[in-house]
């Protein structure tokens, strides 16, 4: 009998030792998961995002980690595929035991893992645009996102159209997730700004000619055109407009925010107006702007770390997401629930804008996060 007591005590004691040892081991490292579309159809999003999070992890750990604990990133590639994203989320949460997730890169993959993180009660900060990722907030308790909202982009465009006294507009959108979400917002917000959408055309993301749609828009009597897409096909619209000698002003979405798209449209891109984060035109942002330091800092360190690559807004979204998380973890350690509460209280000056999260707003950005940019001599500059 006695021996059994002793044995039980020994087992209990060693179990205690083991668990506390495990706790100490775990406490020295903070595990964060990243689900990014590094390869596949959205690799131009995931690649700069991966580069950025790796760069930040190095910086954080070189500076002594988070409260002395090493930040360990588990980076998964979802290849832009919903099923892979769900597998990756399950893996990160159940196998790697991460305390938070950065990403995914696209709206579709983000929506696919929302049920997973909600059930597992692990905070995630998506790097994708669609507002539905974080709305309705009541059903998205654990979900945040770092890019600006497409609805705010629409508002900036409509604001500018109003100053030009244009009310009759045509819209042309691509049939991708990004384009469809933009089309919804353009139509929804039109009433509020008394905009009259006289033509509503769409094109396939792989389309090579939009002449037919543009002729319809011209015939409908549009005074300005809004083109909403994130694919290379969007550069064909200004080219077709030039060929058709359509003189109406062309507005594009923040999806135009890649210098390659302006280059693809050539001369026809000159004068295109589009709202975008300020990262694309750092040099022309006023020196006293609150974001100036962050923007220049991120661009310089990124282009120094990856000399072959140019800074992009997408890497910026990962930059914001990871820093917001790191700041929250400085206060909350590795407890997912506490991290979530901290993120919800976060105020942060990032590359996409000045974030102000709240229980009712898991995006934290408003329309001032967008700056109207234009193309001048093949470069993006702030519209004066």
């Amino acid at each position, binding site marked *: 009998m006695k021996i059994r007591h002793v044995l039980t005590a020994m087992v209990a004691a060693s179990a205690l030792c083991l668990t506390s040892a495990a706790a100490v081991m775990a406490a020295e490292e903070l595990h964060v998961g990243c689900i990014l579309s*590094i*390869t596949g159809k959205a690799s131009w999003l995931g690649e700069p995002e991966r580069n950025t999070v790796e760069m930040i992890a190095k910086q954080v750990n070189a500076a002594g980690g988070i409260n002395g604990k090493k930040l360990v990133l588990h980076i*998964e*590639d979802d*290849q*832009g*595929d*919903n*099923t*892979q994203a*769900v*597998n990756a989320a*399950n*893996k990160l*949460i*159940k*196998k790697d035991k991460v305390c938070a997730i950065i990403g995914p890169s696209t*709206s*579709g993959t983000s*929506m*696919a893992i*929302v*049920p997973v993180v909600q*059930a597992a009660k692990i905070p995630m900060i998506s790097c994708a645009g*669609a507002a*539905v990722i974080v709305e309705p907030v009541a*059903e998205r308790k654990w979900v945040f996102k770092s890019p600006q909202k497409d609805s705010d982009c629409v508002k900036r465009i409509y604001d500018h159209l109003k100053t030009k006294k244009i009310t009759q507009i045509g819209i042309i959108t691509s*049939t*991708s*997730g*990004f*384009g*469809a*979400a933009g*089309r*919804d917002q353009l139509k929804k917000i039109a009433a509020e700004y008394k905009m009259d959408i006289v033509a509503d055309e*769409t094109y396939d993301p792989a389309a090579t000619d939009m002449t037919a749609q543009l002729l319809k828009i011209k015939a409908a009597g549009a005074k300005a055109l809004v083109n909403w897409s994130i694919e290379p096909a969007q550069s064909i619209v200004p080219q077709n407009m030039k060929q058709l000698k359509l003189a109406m002003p062309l507005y594009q979405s923040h999806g135009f925010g890649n210098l390659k798209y302006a280059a693809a449209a050539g001369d026809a891109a000159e004068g295109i107006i589009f709202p975008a984060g300020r990262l694309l035109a750092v040099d022309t942002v006023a020196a006293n702007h609150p974001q100036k330091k962050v923007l220049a800092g991120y661009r310089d360190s990124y282009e120094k770390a990856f000399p072959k690559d140019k800074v992009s807004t997408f890497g910026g979204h990962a930059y914001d997401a990871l820093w917001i998380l790191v700041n929250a973890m400085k206060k909350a350690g590795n407890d997912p629930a506490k991290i979530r509460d901290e993120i919800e209280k976060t105020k942060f000056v990032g590359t996409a804008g000045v974030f102000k999260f709240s229980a009712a707003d898991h995006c934290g950005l408003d329309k001032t996060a967008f700056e109207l940019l234009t193309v001048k001599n093949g470069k993006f500059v702030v519209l004066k």
Partner: protein
Amino acid sequence: MNMKDYIGIGVLALIVAVMPFAVGNDYYLGVLVFTALNCLTCIGLCLLLGYAGQISLGHSAFVAIGAYASALLTTKLGWNPWAAMGAGIVISLVTAVLVGIPTLKLKGHYLAMATLGFASIVHVVLVAAVDITGGPSGVSGIPRLELFGLALDTDTRIFYFCWALVLVALYFAVNLIHSRVGRGLQAIHGSEDAASSLGVNITVDKIRIFALSAVFASVSGSLYSHYVLYIDPGPFDVMHSVLLITMVAVGGIHSIWGAVTGAVLLSLLPEGLSFLSEGLAQFNIQYKTDYDTLIYGAILLSIMLFLPEGLFDGIRRSFSFFSKTNTETERGQ
């Protein structure tokens, strides 16, 4: 012959039963749920491809029909998930018959092209009919399945349920193959004219088996919806059809077990590779997911070169005692 199939089903059932205790982590069960869904579609596809000899590049469309029927009827009209799954089956069945009547008169490449076209059309509708399907933004908030008041909300429960369905499907398929209909199908595969002269109604039989495989795909799609709880057109593009065909071909199109082998192998391969990359990382070797495609290609190429009858046949031949009687009886039929 039949006995061996039943033993196979029994062994698979045993493996399934102990799997949750063996893997020890829900994450692996999640991967195996997707594996089960692919198995289900591939079993149906194998009946069509391997036994009836009709190629279809349109099965992603039936998976999509099942998935969207479940998603839309439950979220927009508040249907019971089982009723929605049933509706998906009916829609797939009717669609398969309507598509099958003209297309199954075609042969070889033409049939492949026609079904490929069908898959593209369904995908375009999913993307463009925004008001009905939600377009590229997809459908979210899909409810979970419930079985006798028990919500299928843990990976273990869904795992058992999906694999139970795979076993039922296998049992059904095996019986079908060894029935009069099954022998008729194999006769069609051999020579349509000969089969027809022996009294096999080839048109009806082909349409039947096409519709049956569509039902398998539809159920798999419905289960996908109720497991992931969010769908958009992404997973149901034409490339998914190609992947399904690849699974069946890699496993071996002439055996239902080949379809299962191929589906399991190709579903687990991405996870296997990510496991490999972690292993390599410990030795400071950088493995990039960009190499995945290369490895896939190498595997497919070597299987097609060295095991043209598929992986399952290769495994079977390496156990020669197993193979002799098997292949003989199969040819005999």
